[in-house]
């Protein structure tokens, strides 16, 4: 067994449910590398997931406490859990692009607005892949998928100058980054930074689905093909304000770093409760 997986994961759950060669397994390992670098153990971190390829691969792998929410709702569930846990416990959520940026976006934005101390790692396989390959909001414009046999025609969250991370930033997030799974060191550094953030943090990691997206949109379902295609489309995030028309491709880097700029949700709430009780003459 992989030594990192052996150290942190339940043995019966590794290598997990992802298809052979899937970048999701690389991502799973990159997250463990970050956890290892921070010296976190099973009692330091609660690991939540949603559904889809990312949920299935990562749920109940962590030796510590673990949970999975319904599609798109785990941000609300985790916000409730955050209320009950002591501040030093980290909450990590590994989710998919559909979960975070379509069905769950209102809840994700609410968590960002409140600046809830959660770390969300979005495993971006470029659409709905566990259901067999339908386009989603991170599927590049024009892609042929099983639900866009003539190519996608509606804009996604990264087409025509849109960037979903800009929305999450405006909603109040503390730390945001985007990388491809092939940028191993950068992913590890950003997940470390995210886990060290007192507030809402999110790292989007593009890995692409070779089995469905590769075969349907690129005409080549091999791991090599999707990796080569991702590499060729990877561009660094430009410093300064976002350009009017974003270049096509995966704009990678730290997108937003405002760690410590806004008070965290549960701290604010506990202060509020303490103030009410002080006014009423109650102690602690």
């Amino acid at each position, binding site marked *: 067994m992989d030594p990192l997986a052996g150290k942190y994961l339940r043995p019966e759950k590794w290598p997990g449910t992802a298809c052979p060669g899937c970048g999701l397994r690389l991502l799973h390992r990159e997250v463990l590398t970050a956890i290892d670098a921070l010296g976190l153990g099973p009692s330091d971190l609660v690991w939540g997931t949603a559904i889809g390829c990312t949920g299935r691969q990562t*749920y109940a792998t962590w030796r510590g406490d*673990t949970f999975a929410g319904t599609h798109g709702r785990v941000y609300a*569930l985790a916000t409730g859990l955050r209320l009950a846990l002591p501040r030093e416990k980290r909450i990590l959520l590994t989710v998919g692009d559909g979960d975070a940026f379509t069905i769950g976006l209102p809840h994700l934005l609410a968590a960002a607005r409140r600046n809830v101390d959660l770390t969300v790692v979005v495993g971006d396989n470029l659409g709905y892949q566990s259901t067999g390959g339908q386009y989603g909001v991170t599927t590049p414009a024009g892609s042929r998928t099983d639900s866009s046999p003539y190519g996608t025609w509606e804009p996604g969250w990264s087409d025509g100058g849109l960037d979903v991370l800009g929305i999450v930033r405006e909603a109040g997030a503390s730390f945001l980054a985007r990388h491809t799974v092939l940028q191993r060191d950068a992913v590890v550094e950003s997940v470390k930074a995210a886990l060290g953030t007192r507030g809402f943090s999110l790292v989007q990691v593009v890995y692409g689905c070779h089995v469905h997206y590769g075969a349907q949109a690129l005409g080549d379902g091999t791991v090599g093909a999707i990796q080569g295609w991702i590499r060729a489309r990877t561009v660094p995030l430009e410093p300064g304000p976002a350009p009017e028309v974003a270049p096509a491709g995966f704009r990678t880097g730290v997108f937003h770093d405002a760690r410590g700029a806004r008070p965290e949700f549960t701290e604010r709430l506990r202060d509020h*409760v303490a103030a009410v009780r002080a006014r009423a003459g109650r102690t602690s």
Partner: protein
Amino acid sequence: MRRVFDTGNAAITEAAIVAGCRVFAGYPITPATEIAENMARRLPEVGGYYVQAEDECAALHLCNGASLGGLKAMTATSGPGFILFADPFGWAVSAEIPVVIVDAQRVGPVSGITGAPGQGELYLSRYLAHGGNYETIVLAPSSVQEAFRLTVRAFALAERFRTPVTLLADQMVTDGWEALAIPETSDERAAMGLEVVPRRAHPGPDFYPASDAIDVPPVVLGRGAGGACSDWTPTERGHDTEEVEAQHKHAHRLIHKIRRHRHLIDEHEAWGLEDDPEVILVSYGTPSRVVKSAVARARAEGLRVGGLRLVSLWPFPDHLFARRARYLSVELNWDGQLVREIQRAMSPGSSAHFFGRCGELPRVAELCEASRALLRGERLARRGWELEAY
């Protein structure tokens, strides 16, 4: 004992505090908004947390998460929000999360009439989660004081059965003003028959016993012991599985932990059944107060009429319909819901009839007239469009 004159909404709030509720997440909706407002005021005073959620789906998920972290939690809504609870309700059922849900029924469908009472969610409260494979606990108060008592009871049952418990109220109970006695000491609570079950925590790593056992502490995360729960069919360890055998075990537990201990849940009130009445009026919630008066008046006239008020609605009390009679279901809807369950549960030779009304209560005289018609062996059809034979 604190004696006040207040609403059902206030009673539910104070009862939740007494029961140890320390998290409320909700979304404003008539006629349950006051519960949220009261919780926003009361929870900080006792060191609890009020969170206004982005929608009702999030509200119940927030409560689930807080409960998963070890805090007792409650949410409250009305029909349009209740339907949005479907997703987190199913999650709580399957993950065996204690949580309390209040539904102040108003007039539907959809937004309907906001400030009038309805009873359109009898079946929704039973089948709110998709996919079947579970039993659930639903309690229905008919007064402000009873709303208090049943809220405390809902929290106790939620803890003991590791499950969401629904308080199915109606707008007249939640908005109505009545005298309310609030116990302030454990002796006063005991004298009122109120049981407060403290939260116990099961840190894992096993998730559930494949049995119908109750009083099993719920999984509480944060101890690092490998606790696990999810929306998927679980193994006993809490891992996701696609195995049908595991699904059988889990579904059996969800169904039978409740059904086999239903004697701890069942509650009803009966009027005049000792005299073997020919006609029995059946109801729950606010309409049962009119029914009680109608039964008393009919009996004073010497009519062979009795009454049943259901307090626990689910699991449905089939055993109450074992006697042969003409049952008249009095409900705040026009389509007939409770009557369908009566028709299913009643003994051979019985008949089930329906008196519908919505947004307002029936009158005592109308119920007496309907009872007399049934005693004469008449059907209720076409005696006015509000009196339909079912």
